[in-house]
């Protein structure tokens, strides 16, 4: 798994639960040097271990923990660069969701060896979309759910999200309820990258 993905997990735990918790988790999961490097690649098993141990140490429900990670990636100031890059995917939340299948290609433009989930989007009626997540791990979908929720807030849109469990290919149903729900967060195209 790419270091950027591992680093995201680390930063989320450190910023949300404190450096001591992270050290405890990293130690038990045998993360080399106790921290991830964004530009190195790690065996998938290391990421799996960190995740398993984190939910145990933090006493969190796994799906909720992953969703919080997704929300963190969009909304926390320490990862503002990522939010900005996501906002390039559409000038409105509808455009953003519609073009979710571009995200994988976009991430590869930036970091060619980044193994991000592949997202597939199908319109489901006038104001709904079905998003599926194709990845080599089963924990992508809940992170994406968190990302989508936070992005709806970012665009100032009221939307309803539901995980379709049980299906052979689980997905997220996104329903747009109010596209002018709130101001949303400022995004200027020329904003200085942080």
């Amino acid at each position, binding site marked *: 798994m790419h270091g950027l993905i591992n*680093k995201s997990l680390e930063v989320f735990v450190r910023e949300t639960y404190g450096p001591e918790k992270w050290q405890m988790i990293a130690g038990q999961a045998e993360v080399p040097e106790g921290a991830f490097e964004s530009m190195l690649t790690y065996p998938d098993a290391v990421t799996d271990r960190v995740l398993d141990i984190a939910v145990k140490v933090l006493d969190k429900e796994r799906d909720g923990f992953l969703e919080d990670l997704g929300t963190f990636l969009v909304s926390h100031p320490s990862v503002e660069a990522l939010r900005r890059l996501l906002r390039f995917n559409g000038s409105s939340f509808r455009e953003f969701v519609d073009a979710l299948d571009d995200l994988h290609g976009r991430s590869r433009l930036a970091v060619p060896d980044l193994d991000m989930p592949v997202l597939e989007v199908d319109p489901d009626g006038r104001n709904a979309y079905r998003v599926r997540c194709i990845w080599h791990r089963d924990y992508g979908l809940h992170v994406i759910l968190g990302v989508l929720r936070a992005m709806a807030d970012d665009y100032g849109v009221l939307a309803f999200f539901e995980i379709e469990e049980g299906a052979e290919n689980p997905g997220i149903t996104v329903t747009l309820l109010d596209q002018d729900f709130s101001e949303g967060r400022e995004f200027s195209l020329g904003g200085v990258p942080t």
Partner: protein
Amino acid sequence: MSENNRILGLSARTLDALMPMHIWIGPTGHILQCGCTLQKLMPEAPFPGKLFFDEFTIVRPRRVKVLDQLLQMNGAQLKIGLKGLPNMHLKGTVVALPGGTGAFLNLSFGISVQDAVRRFDLSLTDFAASDLAVEVLYLIEANAAAMNASRDLVDRLQDAKTDAESRALTDTLTGLNNRRAMDMTFGQLLAHPPQDGFGLMLIDLDYFKSVNDTLGHAAGDLVLLEVAKVLREDVRADDKVFRVGGDEFVLVLRNCNDLDLMTRIADRIINRLEQPVHYEGKPCRISASIGITISDYYDPVEIDKMLSDADEATYASKNAGRAQHTVFKPADRPMPEPARDLH
């Protein structure tokens, strides 16, 4: 059907959606219409109705000033400046409109795109869907973020390297112990003095500089490797060899107050170092000046004093014609009293 018959009529709104930075110039040289994004560069002064050449300058391929000359550039890539905005250049193409009805230009920001979106607060919707400008902006940001992450890693690796070097105990060229290792060895010798004290030999290479100067640094390095090999082979297992300068070496002989032994070792070393090594078929000739002292001369043992005395003896060897050893003579201090051994 001739080409002239196939005319496409597009409204201003449609043209805006396709080409938000277009300019339509009438036969008199006045701007008839311009795209909404282009107008954002001069929001206070609408372009339509003004003379094109009052507002814009053609920088490339040639500086032209009248419509007829502009029309001759039909299809060419243009670099265009705005008179009201120095430092801002646009790129684009001009085409002549049929029947002498004027000109039509389509422009883009080219490499000024990042500057432009900042200055004029442009948004995703200000660009045509087919324009790659937004992707370029995305890439600039993504690249900056990735570069930051890479730079962080490089910085940390650099720190780790510096740290490792400062903690290193060996000389990278010869693999011999370095000055830092020598200081540690002396620390241990003072803390746990060997029963028979220790001997110190300072070896300064003769003629090494001329090998470097005449045959180059590669030859010099080869010589140093050979010196290291000789010194390692000529000392006992308990003794230590240090490279403490470019062509300066120190031998510490544990449990050694035997000056005869030390002078024999010194002679053997000089003898062996004088066997030339060959670099690209040419002999590299060196020798060594050696200074010797032993810890028994000092009470209490002072490392700095021993080193400076050994240094003095080395210079005596140099002054006496090099290629020889000198034993330091502690003239102004009494020889150790035999009674001391009774404790």
